[in-house]
């Protein structure tokens, strides 16, 4: 297929064909990563700006490594300033960065819709590295890729996503990526963090972790944001762990060959027991590895690498 996208803002409007195409491209990128010299000149002379308005280590590093492996010049611009706070508006920041003529802006922002907003006012490509509770498309793609590498398929697999669904951009992007590829999706968490309307996404919604995990092929645990405790979505971390934490006992309900995923960083002992996090079922580090390949693939595609090569 021909790649026509200028931006990657979310997976909501990605077709199955496009998703497969990104995965295929990521596979060839992974070949690069196995070489001795892990660098190709595909993005030489291109500038990638990592524009991060929210703290992030792994996603930013992953994008930075991906860019550098493709020989792009990568610039990091971090600002902890929330969009709502007084100061330069996102629009002004965007215009300023745009005036420096980057090829691609990778943005993380606390407001849902921020990436879509940015893309309307800049002339370069935009990759959404997480916008509020909306989407985290590279995570949705890398999770899909990691599952494919482990299971050789996605269609028909029971995937349970467990935790704070309400605020999770990872869950929303995974609903699109895994849903589009035919997974049997389950969403689970306390009633306060799993809106009943989420059933309209096509996933099965439950508040019972056992029901979600039973016969699952993939169990994806989401990070509980400790700072959300101030608005008391659940009584205590202890109570949360008791009802929605994954331990060996609950996990034993899943298929024998089930895998455990987590977008990181893990709160060990809260949503995921120490033991399981390091078990052979865990593919958490494969997810991280897949992330670099997926991000290389997207940078490459957006920079026109694919079409130029044709």
């Amino acid at each position, binding site marked *: 297929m021909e790649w026509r996208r200028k931006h990657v803002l979310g997976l909501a409007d990605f077709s199955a064909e496009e998703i497969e195409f990104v995965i295929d491209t990521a596979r060839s990128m992974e070949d690069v990563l196995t070489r001795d010299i892990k660098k190709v000149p595909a993005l030489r002379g291109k500038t990638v700006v990592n524009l991060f308005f929210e703290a992030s280590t792994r996603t930013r590093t992953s994008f930075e490594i991906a860019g550098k492996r493709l020989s792009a010049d990568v610039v990091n611009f971090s600002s902890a300033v929330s*969009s709502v706070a007084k100061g330069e*508006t*996102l629009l002004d920041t965007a215009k300023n960065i745009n005036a420096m003529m980057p090829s691609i802006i990778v943005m993380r*922002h606390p*407001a849902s*819709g921020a990436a879509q907003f940015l893309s309307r006012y800049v002339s370069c490509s935009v990759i959404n590295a997480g916008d509020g*509770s909306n989407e985290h498309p590279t995570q949705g793609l890398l999770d899909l890729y990691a599952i494919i590498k482990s299971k050789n398929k996605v269609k028909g697999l029971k995937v349970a996503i467990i935790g704070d669904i309400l605020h999770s951009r990872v869950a929303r992007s995974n609903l699109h990526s895994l849903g589009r590829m035919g997974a049997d999706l389950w969403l689970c968490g306390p009633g306060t963090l799993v809106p009943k309307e*989420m059933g309209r996404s096509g996933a099965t919604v439950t508040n019972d972790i056992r029901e979600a995990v039973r016969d699952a092929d993939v169990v994806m645990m989401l990070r509980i944001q400790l700072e959300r405790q101030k608005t008391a979505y659940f009584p205590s971390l202890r109570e949360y762990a008791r009802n929605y934490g994954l331990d060996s006992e609950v996990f034993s309900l899943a298929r024998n060959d089930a895998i455990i995923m987590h977008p990181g960083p893990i709160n060990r002992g809260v949503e995921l027991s120490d033991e399981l996090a390091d078990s052979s079922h865990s593919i958490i580090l494969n997810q991280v590895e897949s992330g670099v390949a997926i991000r290389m693939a997207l940078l490459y595609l957006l920079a026109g690498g694919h079409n130029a090569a044709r």
Partner: protein
Amino acid sequence: MLLVKGGRVIDPGSGRDEVGNVVIADGKVADFLPGGESPGTFDGTVIDARGKWVLPGLIDMHVHLRDPGFEWKEDIRSGTEAAAAGGFTSVVCMANTSPVNDHPEVTRYIREKAASAGKANVFPVAALTRGQNGKEMTDFSELFEAGAIAFSDDGSPVRSALVLRRALEYAKAFDFLILEHAEDHELSGEGAANEGWTAHRLGIPGIPSAAEEIAIARDILLARFTGGRIHIQHISTKMGVDLLRMAKRAGIRVTGETAPHYFTLTDAAIDGYNTYAKMNPPLRGEEDRMAILEGIVDGTIDAIASDHAPHDEYTKRCEFVAASNGIIGLETALPLSMALLAGGKVTPARLVDLLSAIPARILGLKGKGTLCKGADGDVTIVDPEVEWEFRESDVRSKSRNSPFFGWKMRGRAVAVLCRGHVTHSLMKEVTPDA
């Protein structure tokens, strides 16, 4: 002297819906001459209203003129120009200005500026509490003497049930009216859109309908308990309408308004993070929209008001959660309300009730909301058939925050008289007064 000739005069106040002639003299309605008969010679301006509707001047009982304090968004002149262009002869402006209209000096400033620069009658609403802090009542009677016609902390609710109880009890002795922005602030929290599938899909924090409904229930119960009079502003939810209906049946002194966007749009309009569809209360679901329509048809809802809320471009051109709440509405309220006529369930006379007669009655505006002899010479002449497109370049307001640009409208105010002066005209032969 002015003669509005040969139009269909729809005036529920006098029970009139017939073709005739309205004579205006000295800023008042001087006479009504029915049918085709009209003075052979008339010493004054003649407006040919044949094929048009002649209505008592429309009253928008909920606008934000942003003056004093936010004059770059709107001021009394631009706001009343927008009102006139939209067919309104009177507007009721909320107190969340800067300074807040909690002092007679601010009320007088608004009245005086409106008298000299306004294109419509401006009736200020004073704050219910000082600085809209929700704690201490303002000086109701002094504000009333300065020209305030009602009391409200609109923009935010009166959070304390105790403060609202006291206000209702105190106001009762003077028969002052309290207008209430019904919202449980804690429940709406950091929400930015109706809590429902659209907001969940977009990852936008939700405002549950219960935040409005609980507050409406509270307000009704306090009105019942105190015997005070309360008017619920901008009702957006199904249960809000149901509660109002129930309260009226129980004989509680409560009235309510909605805004055109609540019966025209649903929260689907925020898709794509459209900040021009962001307001508070937020656009709700289809079930709510249908219930609002039902409330309009069966008389539960007393009035349609625009909640005209001008905002400058940069506070809308930003992330959805950070964007200001509100849309302009003075220039679209009438045509959007006229769309209700299409189903046949709302009659033109009922529309006049909703947009003029009942607001005048609720607010106690003497001489307004009717064209009976001796009433003020406030007249809105409407072409019910004209089709037009609402364009950004048409806007008279200083702000441009509307989700309705590009909409095809049917029906429009073609001439407006305010106390006998022409404040707006799209008719060739009628020139607006300076």
